């Protein structure tokens, strides 16, 4: 037997891929293929710009300059129960043991909180960097998000680093590492997106939610500042919406102490209007925003781990714009590929 044969045979008993993982990978491929056949997002000629959203960098292909945010249209919120494929036998991953089950948002959030609390955890040192690898996943939209006045297709920069003390961040763009020094102190930003700021948040769901509502405060009571002739779209910001969005943004930072992550899920349980749905084998849980868009957290249907976020237009954004209203944000559809702690920006775990 020669050396290559020995090398080959010595690793012959590598276990086959987990069928669930295989199915998820296949679904991701088909999702991308379906999105490609749709050709749904027209390419915009505007140059991509990077800007800061909740401390994590996104690029967007088109943005509107409208100042006024929000719309009056009330979201037609569907019932909070959906049929979702979940594992119910507690057994090892496999093709057996999955069956459709009626689940509520509360059920999903309880499981997600439990899964977060069981996660192994070592806090990063202040000088360490948190690496986040996102994948942008195009999602079929009924109404194109591009176009002259459209909100554009929002995307995450796929590989990012942020120092745990929140003072510096970095991202890869075109193969080059760019550094950004954060000018604002972490505590000035709500919700915090750096580890230091997150670690100071209360891990009690009620206290966390109270904090989220407190930040809605002045927005809700602000008098109209719209110039004459411009229709003020919404006199009061929906406080539940802002609170939920804050919780969503906290999750989007991706390296949370387990107790805080669990608190986010338990706080979400207390926000009215949360809906749950099946999303190609994942569980999607979210809330309508501005009456035209559904913002959802995605969970692995087996482990209840956070796997990403997606936004879906539920109403033609052009109609919202026609009413003279601005649209705050646009479809962000991303999955978490990996998150880890490294010693320097540019390193991968």
């Amino acid at each position, binding site marked *: 037997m020669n*050396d290559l044969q020995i*090398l080959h045979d*010595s*690793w012959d008993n590598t276990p086959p*891929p*987990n069928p669930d*993982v*295989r199915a998820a*990978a296949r679904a991701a*491929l088909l999702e991308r293929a379906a999105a490609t056949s749709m050709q749904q997002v027209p390419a915009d000629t505007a140059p991509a710009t990077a800007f800061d959203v909740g401390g994590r960098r996104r690029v967007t292909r088109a943005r509107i300059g409208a100042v006024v945010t929000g719309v009056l249209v009330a979201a037609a919120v569907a019932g909070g129960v959906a049929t979702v494929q979940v594992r119910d036998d507690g057994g090892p991953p496999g093709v057996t043991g999955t069956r459709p089950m009626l689940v509520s948002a509360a059920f999903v959030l309880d499981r997600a909180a439990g899964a977060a609390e069981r996660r192994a955890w070592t806090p990063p040192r202040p000088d360490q960097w948190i690496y986040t690898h996102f994948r942008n996943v195009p999602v079929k939209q009924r109404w194109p998000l591009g176009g002259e006045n459209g909100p554009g297709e929002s995307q995450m920069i796929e590989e990012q680093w942020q120092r745990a003390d929140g003072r510096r961040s970095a991202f890869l763009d075109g193969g080059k590492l760019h550094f950004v020094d954060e000018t604002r102190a972490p505590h000035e930003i709500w919700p915090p997106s750096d580890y230091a700021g997150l670690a100071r948040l209360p891990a009690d769901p009620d206290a966390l939610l109270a904090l989220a509502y407190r930040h809605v405060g002045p927005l809700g009571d602000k008098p109209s500042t719209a110039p004459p002739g411009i229709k003020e779209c919404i006199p009061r910001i929906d406080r539940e919406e802002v609170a939920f969005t804050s919780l969503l943004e906290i999750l989007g930072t991706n390296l949370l102490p387990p107790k805080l992550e669990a608190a986010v899920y338990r706080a979400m349980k207390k926000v009215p209007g949360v809906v749950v749905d099946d999303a190609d084998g994942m569980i999607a849980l979210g809330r309508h925003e501005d009456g035209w868009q559904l913002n959802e957290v995605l969970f692995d249907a087996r482990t209840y781990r956070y796997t990403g976020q997606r936004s879906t237009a539920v109403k033609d954004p052009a109609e919202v714009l026609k009413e003279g209203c601005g649209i705050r944000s646009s479809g962000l559809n991303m999955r978490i590929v990996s998150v880890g702690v490294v010693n320097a920006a540019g390193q991968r775990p």
Partner: protein
Amino acid sequence: MTITLRKADHDHTEPDLATVTTRTDADIIRASQDDPERFAAVFDRYYDAIHGYAARRLGASLADDVAAETFLIAFDARARYDLARPDARPWLYGIASNLIARHHRAEVRLYRALARTGVEEVTEGHADRVAVRLDAESARTLLSGVLAEIADRDRDVLLLVAWADLSLQEASEALGIPAGTARSRMHRARKQLRAALGETDPTSPGEDLDR
């Protein structure tokens, strides 16, 4: 899966399943230019193999990411696939190799861990270490230690041949390097392998190192 069964819209000469299943990878990739979902047939053919390759080099968890990402990248790049090549494996393994290279520290850690595991077993279980023929387990222990020491680019060539079952020529295509370069990297890697194996269990000495 319906994709392999469905008749191509633009190909009226495609009469039955037998014909469909014997299509080359290049045929499928060509068809997927117009009908993207047909690319799933490439996934169905090679996902397990790519995953297995990545799992040997990085462990199951990172392999999950690498294998999924390999097919997404391949899908995005399918328009640039050289349709003159019927077998897509070198292309796919090339993509996977690039992704694996991002984790080279994790790879080396894995080999070192495997090498250590074996040592512990030997010291606890077999006080009388005699010159026995290598079983798969102890060979793996020994070879893991060697793999951790082999230079990254040499290891890429070696493992594409030993674990992905590519020929040396295909490995050079996968990595986008000249065949001669692949040969010399292979030669270096095998010298290290044979040195390690030779100390324990000499094999036929006259073998051609380049296979």
